[in-house]
């Protein structure tokens, strides 16, 4: 058969059941992405004879003899299609993984369809942007600003990889063809708790093309945690690479490696596994009871299924409640959700001629992944290289090592390259999730609203494994309580093992869950007392000069580098009363209300964290920046360049950057918990300053002008009245053996705090339970904006993710512990139609601790959104909805019962 792909003729015979998506990728069209492989996300959109289709649903043979256009064929003679240019101008992407499909769809819309974007874009999911910038692109709005020397910091500069993203040339993890690579597939457990008695591989081994089958008997019997942290002791070593006990439906049972994915998949089906079914427990409260089946016999068995408990009290809540005029007590709960980064997990491992191991992967922490691999396989660190190229989203989901290990195992055993790409279903059943938490909150207050006691009790369902279980629990008991000044605070939390898919790190990291509970409770208490919710918060919120504490008495390294919570509350209150936003729909069934919530975030994790940066002046007068931190759509590559450029008085464009590579960049703990800005950004700042000193010192020596009279000016240096190009300076230095290089490291202490306040005005239809968000406004106190467009984009994305968590997303688990809805069509992450455009405001602050005055920019915005929505719903209906998600069927249920 012949195919015409982007103007090139291809003669090939697809496999009978092959879809066009993989066929195109077989021939190097890596711009055709996979977000779901089931027709739901649109990342694979191509044109067939000019008509947009989802290539994952298109039988490959159907495209024969027809003209196929992919993102790589959209530009004509190197001139971008206007839609590609529009996406660049509006920077309508973050990780960029959805972009190819989004552009192929957007570029196909006629005038009529352009009028109806909610319908026209319903087949294209973006997890990063919240669609605001995509909407901008489709309306021809430009957001990028000029790159002016010396003014890089604070400017809305574009992502340096933008041009490759909009043309489909950016290479994400699986976008390479590794010669001779074998494909790995995993057989996953159908049982929630079972012992593997036997695995018969005979039939599976007989499948042509199978190169190896690995079970628990073939892997190092070494315990570890898949969670990645600098301090390996904060997560329990409760995992074997492959185990003889499975503890959740979806746990890996065996790995098959074969010449093709099809052969590996067929062999998985033919593995004959005998299980001895064990009793399972799904509810964490039941799991804490003495007679509950125990999941782990390793470690501290006396604690049963309680992986960790955390308790603390300051003052005396007993006394606090005794002195209260009003007490509010209620239990709130949040649901289990999946990160749904559009690029699934995946890794490729191979050995080079010298026997050195290389792992290309989609990780937020390649350096920690390397350490874990060295531990598991007892390899010397110098024999292992782990790196990332482009990553299609993370959100905490890739703060795990869950795809690298098996690829490495198979490569070491077989000697050939091995690749493994998760399916979307595997993301739901075999990766990690946000911890489901149930929080009982008891608040006491004086008649005037002054809090007298805060008492919080949290049960966190960590699932079958405990990675991030302790840290998320600690976060849950931290900031949301610290945000309020109150003499008497107590908190108690349990992270409990159950036989369901494990929890993990997720943007907001535990604090989101209890912020929902505490901010809902604050609202309820305010209502009981008849106090305005803004006033209630202003009265009790933490202020500079306060001793910041949750429930632990020991001093912490968190301090006010700046404070803008008061501004944030004002900004949101003003916005909500401005009359902006949509009118409620007409009709007596619609009720509307407003709600507000605040959130506080320590900028950076309490665990150790370090980042290194290296900078050099290059022979051509440009700069090179090597930074270990990962870019997965969080924007750190862009902001790091800006920080460096700003210090070096040049344009961001003059700074070439590489990142996240254990060979080519200095060590970095990983990009999570806002460390991209507050730690790695600090390392960049320090390295750039060191290089600046290096350059000025040499220039002074070279010209004889004192350093005080030397300064950089874009690509030149001025020394007294002499001006020379950096190229010439480099030559002069090189001639005398001078090296224009610098390296610095940054650690995370002290930490500052960021604040976010969200306001919502919504309408709810009493009968159908439908919610319409009429106005959404967030004010963020995140210090100086290194890149305002990007900061806003991160907030837009966080709001959209929070809206998903609040209104539509919920991993449903059946009676046997299996996920009922492991596909986007049944697990709805927000589409264009679900996300209102939010107003985003910034407090005017400059942080004394963060790099160049900046604070956490990517994470904190998610936390106040869910309670703001729930508070608005309570305000509209008079009914408290205490359990996420707030879907119409639950809303109707409560309204009809309470009516």
């Amino acid at each position, binding site marked *: 058969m012949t195919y015409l792909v982007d103007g090139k003729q291809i003669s090939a015979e697809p496999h009978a059941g092959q879809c066009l998506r993989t066929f195109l990728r077989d021939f190097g069209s890596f711009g055709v992405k996979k977000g779901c492989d089931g027709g739901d996300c649109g990342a694979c959109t191509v044109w067939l004879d000019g008509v947009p*289709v989802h290539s994952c649903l298109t039988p490959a043979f159907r495209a024969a003899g027809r003209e196929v256009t992919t993102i790589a064929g959209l530009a004509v003679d190197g001139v971008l299609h206007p839609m590609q240019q529009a996406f660049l101008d509006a920077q309508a992407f973050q990780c960029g993984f959805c972009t190819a499909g989004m552009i192929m769809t957007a570029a196909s819309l006629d005038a009529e369809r352009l009028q109806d974007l909610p319908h026209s874009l319903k087949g294209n999911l973006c997890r990063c942007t919240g669609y605001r910038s995509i909407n901008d692109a489709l309306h021809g709005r430009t957001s990028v600003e000029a790159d002016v020397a010396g003014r890089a910091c604070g400017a809305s500069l574009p992502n340096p990889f933008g041009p490759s993203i909009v043309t489909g040339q950016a290479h994400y993890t699986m976008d390479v063809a590794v010669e001779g690579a074998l494909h790995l597939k995993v057989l996953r457990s159908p049982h929630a708790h079972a012992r593997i008695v036997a695995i018969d591989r005979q039939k599976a081994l007989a499948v042509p093309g199978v190169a190896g089958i690995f079970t628990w008997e073939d892997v190092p019997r070494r315990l570890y945690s898949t969670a990645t942290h600098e301090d390996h002791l904060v997560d329990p070593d409760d995992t074997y690479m492959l185990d003889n006990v499975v503890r959740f439906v979806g746990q890996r049972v065996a790995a098959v490696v074969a010449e093709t994915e099809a052969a590996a998949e067929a062999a998985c089906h033919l593995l004959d596994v005998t299980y001895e079914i064990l009793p399972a427990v799904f509810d964490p409260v039941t799991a804490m009871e003495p007679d509950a089946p125990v999941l782990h016999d390793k470690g501290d068995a006396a604690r049963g299924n309680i992986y960790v408990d955390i308790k603390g009290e300051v003052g005396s809540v007993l006394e606090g409640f005794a002195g209260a005029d009003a007490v509010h007590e209620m239990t709130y709960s949040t649901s289990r959700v999946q990160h749904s980064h559009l690029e699934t997990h995946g890794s490729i491992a191979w050995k080079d001629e010298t026997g050195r191991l290389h792992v290309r992967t989609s990780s937020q922490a390649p350096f920690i992944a390397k350490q874990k691999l060295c531990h598991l396989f007892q390899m010397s660190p110098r024999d292992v290289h782990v790196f990332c190229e482009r990553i299609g989203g993370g959100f905490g989901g890739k703060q795990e090592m869950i795809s690298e290990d098996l690829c490495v195992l198979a490569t070491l055993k077989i000697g050939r390259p091995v690749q493994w790409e998760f399916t979307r279903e595997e993301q739901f059943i075999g990766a990690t999730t946000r911890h489901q938490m149930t929080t009982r909150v008891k608040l006491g207050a004086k008649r005037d609203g002054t809090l007298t006691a805060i008492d919080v009790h949290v049960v966190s369902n960590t699932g079958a494994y405990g990675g991030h279980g302790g840290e998320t629990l600690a976060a849950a008991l931290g900031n949301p309580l610290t945000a309020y000044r109150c003499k008497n605070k107590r908190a108690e939390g349990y992270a409990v093992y159950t036989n369901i898919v494990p929890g993990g790190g997720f943007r907001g990291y535990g604090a989101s869950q209890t912020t929902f509970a505490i901010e809902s409770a604050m609202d309820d208490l305010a209502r009981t007392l008849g106090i305005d919710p803004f006033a209630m918060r202003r009265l009790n919120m933490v202020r500079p000069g306060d001793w910041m504490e949750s429930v632990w008495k020991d001093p912490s390294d968190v301090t006010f580098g700046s404070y803008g919570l008061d501004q944030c509350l004002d900004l949101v209150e003003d916005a909500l009363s401005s009359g902006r936003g949509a009118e409620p729909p007409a009709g007596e069934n619609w009720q509307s209300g407003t709600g507000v919530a605040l959130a506080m975030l320590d900028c950076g994790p309490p665990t150790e964290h370090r980042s290194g940066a290296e900078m050099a002046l290059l022979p051509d007068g440009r700069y090179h920046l090597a930074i270990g931190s990962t870019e997965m759509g969080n924007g750190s590559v862009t902001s790091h360049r800006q920080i460096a450029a700003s210090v070096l008085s040049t344009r961001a464009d003059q700074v070439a950057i590489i990142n996240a590579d254990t060979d080519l960049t200095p060590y970095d703990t990983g990009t999570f918990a806002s460390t991209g800005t507050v730690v790695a950004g600090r390392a960049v700042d320090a390295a750039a300053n060191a290089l600046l000193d290096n350059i000025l010192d040499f220039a002074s020596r070279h010209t004889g002008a004192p350093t005080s009279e030397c300064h950089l000016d874009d690509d030149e240096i001025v020394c007294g009245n002499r001006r020379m190009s950096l190229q010439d300076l480099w030559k002069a230095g090189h001639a005398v053996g001078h090296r224009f290089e610098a390296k610095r490291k940054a650690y995370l202490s002290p930490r500052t705090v960021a604040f976010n306040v969200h306001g919502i005005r919504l309408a709810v239809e009493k009968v159908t339970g439908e919610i319409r968000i009429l106005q959404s406004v967030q004010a963020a106190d995140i210090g100086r904006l290194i890149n305002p467009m990007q900061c806003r984009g991160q907030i837009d994305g966080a709001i959209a993710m929070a809206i998903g968590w609040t209104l539509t997303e919920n991993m449903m688990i059946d009676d046997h512990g299996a996920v009922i809805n492991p596909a986007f069509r049944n697990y709805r992450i927000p589409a264009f139609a679900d996300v209102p455009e939010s107003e985003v405001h910034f407090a005017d602050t400059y942080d004394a601790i963060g790099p160049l005055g900046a604070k956490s920019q990517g994470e904190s915005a998610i936390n106040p959104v869910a309670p703001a929505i729930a508070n608005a719903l309570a305000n509209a209906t008079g009914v408290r909805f205490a359990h996420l998600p707030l879907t119409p069927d639950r809303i109707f249920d409560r309204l009809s019962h309470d009516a």
Partner: protein
Amino acid sequence: MNLNAIRAIKRPLTADEITGWASGDAWLAGGTWLFSEPQPSLETLIDLEQLGWPALALSDGGLDIAATCSIATLYGFNPPVQWGAAALIKECANCLLASFKIWNAATVGGNICMSLPAGAMISLTVALEATYELWQRDGTQREIPALDFVTGNHANVLKPGELLRSIHIPARSLSKRFALRHASLTKLGRSAALIVGTQTGGTGDMLLTITAATPRPVQIAFPAVPTSIELRRAIDAAIPGDGYFADPHGSAPYKHHLTYHFAEQIRQELAQPAVLA
């Protein structure tokens, strides 16, 4: 996604080229459902594309839609003015979870044969009292009312190898007036309830079609627009309390509640005299 178990594609020019039928055989129309999930038990796909059935045929008797007609083609159909109910085509298509890109490949017959409770082409054709022409492998043909085709969630009357050939919508029902209501848990999401009422011009009758809320379509004919109480009784008689369909797109009680609510809205609308456009 790749359907790795598929060994062969047959591309017949006429349906009778396919004589036998094995358990691993499947008809391939648009492929938008088949390729959306692993199909480990299928071995052979039999492509309907080259049968070349004309997508739409218009006659005094009504509209004939080939099973292979794409949803996009049907959506673009320009009906004669007197067919007021043809507007249901667009309204139902817009109730599909799938986007317009899927419509470019997905077929009307495919949506019907998938037989999901929320299959909007089922809602459309049942509401418009269509009949389906089915071709069996032994060469015999049969016609059945659209209402009787779907038997449950993802289940229908098709025998192994039997093919949905076409859908006939009578002009009589295309000339009716109609009212449609639907809701989903998410914006433009999969329907939790999709309910259509039609009324023969010049009469006060009412034909109520309930889909998505129930595992299979339910239709209730009223010679005259019922009262609110009569309507509710009729619904209760047609659908037992446990007869609503629970899935991630809505709880059964919610769908039950929506059914009452929307049916009542439709009743009120059709009780009003028709406004001439």
